[in-house]
């Protein structure tokens, strides 16, 4: 029998060594001008008219371009830069936008950028009516005035429109016409193919594995410098595995490194951390239609009872900043206020004023259960509320159930509190304030808050073309929100990215955390 055991061991050894017979791969080695990204999810479709989630955005920014975009680090409309448009004029009534297109831009299918492509792209997106199509709801018609001039007419003034166009990617009209089947606007084809003008073109997409893109030789901005010439976007779902891959240098950037791992990796010379102020705000939203939160004093008491420091230092390891308003300071329209302070005595006093001096009520907080920081934060909050005689029931739910629970038709069944992370879709306060605080909003972040004054100001801001007047309106809105307290702006997300050490430079896309502008990547040795 011993001989059987010996053979078994020998078999294992042979099985273990056999693959090396023809291969000398050393796993974890960096690879020249190849940039490899690890992403937790992959896009479900490559169609720029439909893809709007984070995985889609991470791909679309490589293969497609919009007419305009925010320059890195800015959100000010005055610093908006042309991408496929070189300049634009806006009529005094705010209804006509005329774009002068960049000459000599080629799509990956070989066709030239022209006004027809812009017209087809916008009309196609509006007709499909999915993804980011909501930003085009005011578009009445698009006209190709000349080969390189396009005019967009709106049915009503919509001041954030120019900023919202950063979400509208332009596709080759030739590709749409060539691949259209039964009037599907080439949706079937664009699901797996691309015809953009971006710096990288799609070479292959192995579903569930990776996408490979290569530098487009005719890209209009050129390729001088140490740009990445090949991009591989790999699906790596597990954050712990992402960390190992970045540490080993097998990937150059990963999108889901946990806060604990970011801290741990600071000791590692093989990686480089890049941190910049973000635009996303982490709120605790309150159900303003459900007693006792109908009383603003109770809501203000909760603001004073939240343990900000414990959350920031103990849970988030200092990787966020205290929020000092309903918008991130990166917005020129940000109304700078003092960050909320933990003050149980004040909370007790406010509860007393509202007739709840001994608390005596129960609140329900729902959170997205995979997020540790939401779970830990809610437990810290529950401990403090207990000191005020308030019981906080915690419910961690998966995403689908959380959405449903929050918008239960019976208000008594709705929770009282919910954590809400919001990243602006584009560089206007409208993209955060309108969906979250407009009374008729159907966005999941809206939690029954209704103030006709705020509605009127949000509507007016959309119609106000003068930037300084619009800023004044947004400041007023934020002050009104501070008075009404429909939520607690808890923290500001800083954008923290971890790269392999050979990445010497990379810009983050302006509004979105964890989306890299791949063209700006510079690779060292």
């Amino acid at each position: 029998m011993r001989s059987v055991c010996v053979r078994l061991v020998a078999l294992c050894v042979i099985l273990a060594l056999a693959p090396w017979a023809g291969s000398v791969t050393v796993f974890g080695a960096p690879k020249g001008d190849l940039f490899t990204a690890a992403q937790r999810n992959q896009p479900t479709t490559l169609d720029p008219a439909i893809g709007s989630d984070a995985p889609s955005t991470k791909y679309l920014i490589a293969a497609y371009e919009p007419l305009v975009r925010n320059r890195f680090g800015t959100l000010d409309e005055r610093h908006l830069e042309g991408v496929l448009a070189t300049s634009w004029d806006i009529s005094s009534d705010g209804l006509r936008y005329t774009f002068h297109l960049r000459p000599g831009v080629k799509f990956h299918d070989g066709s030239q950028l022209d006004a027809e492509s812009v017209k087809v792209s916008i009309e196609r997106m509006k007709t499909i009516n999915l993804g980011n199509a909501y930003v085009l709801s005011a578009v009445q018609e698009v006209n190709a005035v000349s080969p390189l001039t396009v005019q967009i007419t709106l049915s009503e003034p919509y001041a954030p429109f120019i900023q919202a166009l950063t979400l509208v990617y332009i596709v080759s009209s030739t590709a749409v016409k060539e691949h259209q089947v039964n009037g599907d606007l080439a949706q079937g084809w664009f699901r797996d193919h691309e015809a953009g003008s971006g710096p990288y073109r799609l070479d292959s997409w192995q579903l569930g594995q990776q996408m490979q893109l290569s530098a487009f030789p005719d890209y209009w901005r050129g390729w001088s410098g140490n740009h990445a010439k090949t991009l591989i976007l790999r699906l790596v779902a597990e954050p712990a595995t992402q960390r190992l891959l970045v540490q080993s240098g097998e990937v150059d950037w990963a999108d889901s490194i946990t806060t604990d791992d970011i801290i741990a990796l600071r000791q590692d010379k093989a990686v480089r951390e890049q941190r910049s102020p973000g635009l996303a705000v982490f709120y605790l939203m309150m159900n303003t239609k459900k007693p006792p939160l109908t009383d603003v004093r109770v809501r203000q008491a909760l603001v004073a009872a939240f343990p900000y420091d414990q959350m920031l230092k103990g849970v988030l390891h200092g990787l966020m900043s205290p929020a000092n308003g309903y918008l991130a300071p990166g917005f020129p329209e940000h109304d700078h206020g003092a960050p909320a302070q933990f003050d149980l005595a004040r909370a007790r006093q406010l509860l007393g004023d509202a007739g709840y001096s001994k608390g005596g009520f129960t609140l329900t907080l729902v959170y997205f259960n995979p997020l540790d920081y939401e779970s830990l934060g809610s437990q810290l909050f529950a401990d403090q509320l207990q000191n005020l005689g308030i019981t906080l029931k915690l419910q961690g739910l998966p995403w689908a159930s959380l959405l449903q629970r929050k918008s239960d038709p019976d208000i008594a069944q709705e929770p009282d509190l919910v954590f809400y992370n919001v990243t602006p879709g584009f560089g206007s306060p409208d993209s955060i304030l309108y969906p979250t605080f407009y009374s008729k909003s159907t966005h999941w972040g809206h939690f029954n808050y209704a103030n006709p004054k705020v509605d009127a100001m949000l509507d007016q801001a959309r119609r106000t073309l003068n930037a300084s007047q619009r800023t004044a309106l947004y400041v007023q809105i934020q002050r009104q929100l501070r008075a009404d307290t429909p939520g607690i702006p808890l923290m500001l997300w800083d954008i923290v990215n971890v790269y392999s050490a050979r990445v010497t430079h990379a810009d983050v896309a302006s509004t979105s955390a964890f989306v890299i502008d791949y063209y700006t990547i510079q690779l060292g040795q």
Partner: protein
Amino acid sequence: MRFLAYLAMRIGWLIAVMLGVVTLTFLITNVVPADPARLAAGLEAQQAQVDTMRHLMGLDQPLPVQYWNYLVRLLHGDLGLDARSQRPVVTQLAEYFPATFELVIVTMTLYILLGVIGGVAAAVERGSWVDKGAQLLSLGGLAMPPFWVAIVFQVVFFAQLHWLPATGRLSAVLAPPPHITGLYLVDSLVAGQWGTWCDAAVHIMLPAVTLLVGSVANVLRITRRAMLQVFAQPYVATARAKGLSERIVIWRHCLRNSAIPILTMIGLQAGYLFSGAIIIEIVFSWPGLGKYAVDSIANLDFPPIMGVTLIVAAAFVLINLLIDLAYPLVDPRIVY
């Protein structure tokens, strides 16, 4: 004829089981309190967009109509559309299934080799270091969560030793072999791409061994126990007394007479491997049904959830049917 009648009865049961699986999964998916259309339309979607998506997904129909439509489409081999990508679920499953299948096949091969041979060795060398080692390994395998084992293997064999890759089916820079079966180890062999075969083989090692660690204990213990029971039978003493070599006594007489419980365990385990592979696939970024199933469940994307459930259930019942049909081959006393 009796065999054919038995086979027909089993296939009838198989269809009944699958119908039950379809109905239960349909009901469970639809009673979850959530709105799949809102999830599929995206967080920024306005009500009109959500309504468009609801219509596209067929969720604006009454539940019995949705169920009936699903059954009719299923009979035509149509599993519906994946709401998020708008691709046919059949196409998606065809993309993802081969990776899971390949992982399960490799794991099963190692499972049978190590589990059965290890179990026989442990029984023959009862009380020796081989026996104790096998029992320790099997207990350890049962005690360690596969998720943890997977990460430990990645840390040791990828991050520390640089021997094996941590993720994927192939190195990122390698193109997959020409598609024949979708099994990279087979396709690369057929295409004569030795480099690709080697790369695919090293990539499958860690996920397969991780799956193996958690499952091999069962067959090892069953084999050991069955062999020990057979050793006590008089015909084993007779065989030895006749002067048969120990190899023939163990492998031809004892193992064959222990085969029924071992086969049963292998059949059950093969079914469990299909579902158990899901967590392992996520840790190792193995592009099989795992991540597809998890994403579909998180988004309540009904057609893919049904598709994955059906494929796993079908694998489970088919494998067990084959095992049942194999019983007469190892024990002539069983006649259908």
